[in-house]
């Protein structure tokens, strides 16, 4: 008889924590979306990874997931508390968009192609590529004004970053949203199909 109230209390405890975590995860509070691990720890307590895991399970039914992006880039097998605190947590789509749904994200098909080519090209150049080289590549298939407009747009939105020497890099949003390994594999396979 004593167990039931204790388990109810536990459920209420986690339900409350989940609500707070959802507010932090979904609503943009800084210039970047998502929330840092240390912010979650401060708001939810030291067991925040458990709360995040519960939210992730819940979001699975909605085709969403909590994506953890570690500072080190590649996710460690067993992340330490420090690594989790420094990581950033985002809510992303678990599955993928169908070609018909592309308009939902407010981008034209050629805008998406420019983003895809930019990311693939930078990956192939070991994470950094001169902007001019990428522009030359894109201009072979796209009008120059669209290339320039899109590269600037993707820099502003955090997919790419540019340094003072005109070198382009992959930025935080690419790390959060794009499965780079899958992109390369699909491009490799696509040669057979084309």
């Amino acid at each position, binding site marked *: 008889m004593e167990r039931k109230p204790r388990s109810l209390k536990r459920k209420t405890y986690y339900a409350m924590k989940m609500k707070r975590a959802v507010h932090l995860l979904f609503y943009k509070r800084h210039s970047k979306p998502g929330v840092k691990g240390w912010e979650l720890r401060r708001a939810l307590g030291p067991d925040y990874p458990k709360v995040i895991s519960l939210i992730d399970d819940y979001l699975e039914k909605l085709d969403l997931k909590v994506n953890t992006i570690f500072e080190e880039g590649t996710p460690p097998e067993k992340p330490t508390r420090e690594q989790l605190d420094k990581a950033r947590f985002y809510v992303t789509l678990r599955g993928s968009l169908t070609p018909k749904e592309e308009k939902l994200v407010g981008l034209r098909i050629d805008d998406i192609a420019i983003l895809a080519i930019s990311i693939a090209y930078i990956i*192939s150049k070991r994470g950094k590529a001169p902007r001019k080289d990428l522009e030359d590549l894109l201009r072979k298939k*796209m009008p120059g004004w669209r290339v320039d407009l899109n590269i600037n747009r993707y820099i502003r939105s955090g997919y790419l970053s540019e340094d003072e020497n005109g070198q382009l890099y992959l930025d935080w949003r690419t790390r959060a949203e794009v499965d780079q390994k899958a992109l390369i594999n699909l491009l490799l396979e696509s040669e057979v199909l084309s």
Partner: protein
Amino acid sequence: MSIKKRRSLGREELKRIIDLCRSVDIKGLNPFLVDVEDLVTIIKEYFPDWKETWDLCLDAEALNEIASVVNLQSEWVKHRATSLYMDPFLIEEKLHILKAENIAQIFLKIWHPLIEFEQISIHSIGEATKYWKSLLPLDERWQETSIVERELERATRKDLIEQKILAEESFSAELESLWEELKHKVGNYGKVRYWDFIGADTYQETVMRAYLTSFLITYGYATLEIYPLEEEIFIKPFEKPIPIQKMKQQLASFPISISLEEWVRWRENQGA
């Protein structure tokens, strides 16, 4: 060959090495195109000739650039060993062959866009309405300052202090004394509510304290602890000032409204 001519030739060689190494890094070329051993031999050959500091600096710079190339070579090998490696030529070829639509469709399969909301809350609407009501029309806010003609007279130091043209003590001394006050106020607890620290008997003094406190934080004498959900802000002094360059966290501006209404509310809560 005269020593002068040899030195001149050596300098040219060092500059060439520096340019070569930099171009490999900037253009993303294969770092193994650089024959490191050959470059080190050239540096060794000319090293005994260097007497001037400038030449030695050039020598060190060339060596440093070679070290960067060695580092790039190590990264290159690591990258080739990962599953992400693909020959740049191969991918460029693929990007040429494939139609833009096909590339976009591939991308849609691996793209998981972020979900983020930007929504205004009832509280924010309330605050914004209050702000709008208290905002004076532009023609009143931008009114030209009327000049009152007065007879010439000598201003005393006291007058200048009253008009806030001169400070009673130097700015840094004011900051130091505010910092001491903060350290004294937090006691063993280590932190104090922001409003409890900046709040004073008059609104004018409160604004002045908030202004000085912002410098305490910017100059690394103290830090803020912000609890957005609880809507609480604490200020925490450091034992020693931490220079901006040594701060581990990324610096960010955090606006805090010091409106008259908030000051009145704080005073009421204080029981004044």
